[in-house]
């Protein structure tokens, strides 16, 4: 048996002194405690003083009983689940957890996106940007949204919070068919659904999609933390759209994408991480350390996504990497 001794033990059940020992009664189930060293009344007094308000050492001193004997007794009681540990749980509130992760994500995004070739140019009104880069961003965004049900759905049944389930299901419904809005914009460029269905997304796009699927299935808490960033709790989507308008891209292309951004903004999807974490009462230290590690990874994966958009679509290569055209070259 691997039992660590409780530091603030609290006995459950009623104590009765017997001639040859002590009885503990817990809802009709009886247990007997016998000891060769201490008389029943001493044992009973000791057991009654295990009220969770005092530490084990203190209790031992008060009753002038060897502390090792008390430890052994408490361990035996614990092996029968007759004592509770009154020491409080450790951890921070879910809200404090997400605010810390938000801060870390923000700091990482500022640090990495500052050097990202895509964002550097989008945010600099004087920088030259090929139109294909802005179109390419929409294409990759479409690929991402097309696969969103895949990575959102694993958390729809989140078993340990009814409120989180409701939030995620509402979000899921609101996100449904957002790929169609972007598709509408892409149609202005002559790109059809069938073309996109056989087009290869950039590897960085699939890397982002698969990372999110991995997190939503194996670390839902961290997945929830990414939603605020993905749904644009900052002004990045605005900057992209403003730049599209400033570059004079066709309004048939811009308008549906703008509509999509507005839906997200009006539904405050950028605040979703917070709403979810507000329903998580406690996050322990190990979990927090894990969330921090994943946050670094997530921003790096996200950063690569934008880097690849710039590298590929600024190279003059075709907008779509269709499987059929690659096969023709073989």
């Amino acid at each position: 048996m691997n039992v660590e001794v409780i530091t603030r033990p609290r006995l459950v059940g009623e104590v009765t002194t017997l001639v040859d020992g002590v009885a503990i009664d817990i809802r009709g189930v009886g247990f007997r405690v016998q000891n060769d060293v201490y008389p029943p009344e001493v044992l009973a007094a000791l057991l009654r003083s295990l009220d969770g308000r005092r530490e084990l050492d203190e209790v031992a001193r008060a009753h002038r009983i060897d502390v090792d004997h008390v430890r052994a007794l408490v361990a035996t009681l614990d092996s029968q689940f007759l004592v509770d540990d009154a020491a409080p749980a450790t951890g921070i509130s879910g809200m404090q957890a997400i605010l810390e992760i938000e801060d870390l994500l923000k700091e990482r995004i500022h640090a990495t996106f500052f050097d990202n070739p895509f964002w550097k140019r989008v945010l600099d009104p004087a920088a030259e940007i090929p139109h294909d880069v802005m179109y390419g961003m929409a294409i990759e965004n479409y690929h991402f949204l097309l696969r969103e049900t895949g990575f959102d759905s694993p958390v729809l049944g989140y078993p340990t919070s009814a409120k989180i389930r409701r939030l995620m299901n509402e979000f899921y419904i609101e996100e449904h068919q957002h790929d169609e809005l972007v598709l509408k914009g892409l149609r202005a460029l002559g790109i059809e659904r069938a073309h996109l269905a056989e087009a290869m997304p950039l590897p960085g796009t699939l890397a982002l999609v698969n990372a999110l699927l991995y997190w939503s299935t194996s670390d839902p808490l961290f997945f929830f933390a990414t939603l605020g960033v993905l749904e644009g709790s900052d002004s990045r989507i605005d900057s992209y759209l403003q730049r599209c308008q400033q570059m004079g891209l066709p309004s048939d292309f811009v308008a549906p994408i703008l509509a999509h951004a507005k839906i997200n903004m009006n539904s405050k999807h950028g605040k979703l991480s917070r709403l979810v974490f507000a329903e998580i009462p406690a996050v322990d230290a190990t979990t927090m350390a894990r969330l921090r590690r994943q946050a670094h990874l997530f921003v790096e994966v996200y950063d690569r996504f934008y880097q690849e958009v710039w590298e590929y679509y600024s190279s003059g290569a075709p907008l779509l990497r269709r499987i059929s055209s690659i096969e023709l070259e073989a």
Partner: protein
Amino acid sequence: MMLGHDYQFSRPMLRPGARVSVDGDRVRVDYRRHGCTIRTVGAGSADVTAVLTDLQSGLRRADLVDRHPQVGPEALGALIERLDDLGLITEADGALPPGVTSGEQFYRRVRRFGRALAARRAGGAFLRALEDGTATRAQVVGYALEYYHIVHMCPALVAPALANHESPRTRDLLRDFYRTEFDHDRMLQGALAAIGIDRERLDAVIPLPTTFAQATSLAAYARVNPLAFKTCLYLFEVPAPRFQRALRERCQQLALPEAFWKPFLEHSDINEDAGHDDISRVLLREIGAVTEEEQVTTLIAVGALIETFVAQETEILHYYGDPRNPIPRIFP
């Protein structure tokens, strides 16, 4: 609708490290590489500075409103919201709600709940049949087959839990658990071959619904509810010396070969030696905080499994006690 709402800070506070400075009618808040300037009119800068000073100590929202009547709750709310949009605000209220407990403390609740539930339901039907000598050969073999199913499926049930993000210690524990369980079915295959059920036939056998329910519960929790998974493991690993003794004696009475019953008894000894009977406690000890809703969800899972174990004993006696039923359970 729940979306579209915003979180209301109970004790809004400027992030530690944020600096407030005043320059004429401008108040600046700087934090790391970014910050903001608040332009005020007239005597406003003193008010804004006073609010920002208070925001550095993390007062309760209501107290903040009371202390700055000249600013008013609406302007105060707007200021906090704007600062929050810029990532400058955090929550100073870190109190954990009542009901949050440590994983190990929760385990004590689980075991007492399990005890109380077991006391309500008269279990042990199969054990009684072994002890009073009414369990037939077919029923004993049936028990062995159902036991085999769980052991055989075990690696596939446990493996998904290895994919969950956990602390390094928890990962080690789960991996060790998996490693020690992963080929235990082989020794039982030999045991069943000793009574004429060879591997080929064995692969065609299907479990009883209650056995299948035990397996699928564990499989489901391993995938979607790690806490319930870790908690329920003890139910499969609790040592039962009285049962073991009764099983051996009944097998001997029925003249079942030693090569059949010995591996089953040895298997439960291995689990005990590997410390598996304590596995849930050891795993839950790694969890710092468990919420009340998580606890209740998990108690429901534990309760259902305990009831399934009770039902399984009866089902084994009924199914394998009826000569019209195919034994082993191979259906064309």
